C-alpha cells in the first residue's frame, strides 16, 4: 500500500498522486473521490471497473484477480505520475482489487480531480487505458463453461 498523502475532502490542497493500492480489500470510486477533492478542484471524474456477468459472449460467474503486487503498484504509481505531467490535474488516486470477485463488485477504481473537467476526464481515461496495458495484473474467469485465463484478447482454458 502506497499512501502518499492523507488529506480529506476539505483539505486546502490534495495534490499529485494521493493513493495507489493493489490489494484484496473492497474498493470504491466514492472513497477515492473524497481523497482527491480540494478547494481548488472544480471537477472530479471517476471510473469503476465492475465484474459483469458476460465476456466475449460467454456467461461469467465470478473472476479471480492476481497481481505481481509490488511491481503493479510501481506501475500504477508511474502511470498516475505520467497523468499528472500530461494534464493539468490536481490529484489522482487508483486502487485495484485482487482475489475472488463476484458479479457487481468493483475491480478497479480511479478518481481524478482538476480545476476543469476536460483534464479530469482525459486523465482518468488515460489511467484506466494504460493500466490495462501495463499493470502486471491478471484475471481468471469462471462460468458455466469452465475456468479461463484472460490473456489480453484471448481466453485460454485453465487446467487447475
Amino acid at each position, binding site marked *: 500500500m502506497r499512501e502518499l498523502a492523507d488529506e480529506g475532502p476539505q483539505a486546502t490542497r490534495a495534490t499529485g498522486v494521493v493513493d495507489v493500492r493493489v490489494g484484496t480489500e473492497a474498493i470504491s470510486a466514492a472513497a477515492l473521490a473524497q481523497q482527491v477533492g480540494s478547494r481548488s478542484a472544480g471537477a472530479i471524474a471517476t471510473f469503476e*471497473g465492475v465484474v459483469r456477468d458476460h465476456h466475449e459472449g460467454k456467461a461469467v460467474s465470478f473472476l479471480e484477480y492476481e497481481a*505481481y503486487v509490488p*511491481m503493479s503498484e510501481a506501475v500504477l504509481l508511474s502511470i498516475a505520475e505520467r497523468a499528472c505531467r500530461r494534464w493539468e490535474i490536481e490529484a489522482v488516486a487508483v486502487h485495484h482489487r485482487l482475489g475472488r470477485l463476484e458479479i457487481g463488485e468493483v*475491480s478497479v477504481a480511479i478518481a481524478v480531480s482538476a480545476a476543469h473537467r476536460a483534464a479530469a476526464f482525459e486523465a482518468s481515461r488515460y489511467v484506466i487505458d494504460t*493500466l490495462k496495458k501495463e499493470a*502486471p*495484473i491478471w484475471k481468471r474467469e469462471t462460468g458455466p463453461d469452465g475456468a479461463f*485465463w*484472460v490473456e489480453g484478447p484471448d481466453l485460454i482454458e485453465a487446467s487447475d
Partner: protein
Amino acid sequence: MRVEVLLFARAREICGGDCVQLQLSDGATVGDCFAELVAGAPALESMHERLLVAVNECYAGWDTRLSDGDVVAMIPPVSGG
C-alpha cells in the same frame, strides 16, 4: 549466480508453482533463464511468444543480462482492470 523467478497466472499454473530459484552461469540473460525454466517445465515453451519479462520489477528484454540476486518475473499478457 542465483536468481529468483516469479511465475504468474497461466505461467504459474504450467510450472506448478509461483517461485523458482535457479542457478545460472555468469553472464546469463533473461532468455537463458527462460530456457532453464523450460527444461523443468517443457509446456512453458508454448507461452514464449506471449510472455513479457521483468527484472527487479521493471519490464526488461530477453537479452537483458542478469546479476546474482536478481528477481525475474514471467509476465503473461495482462488483463487487469
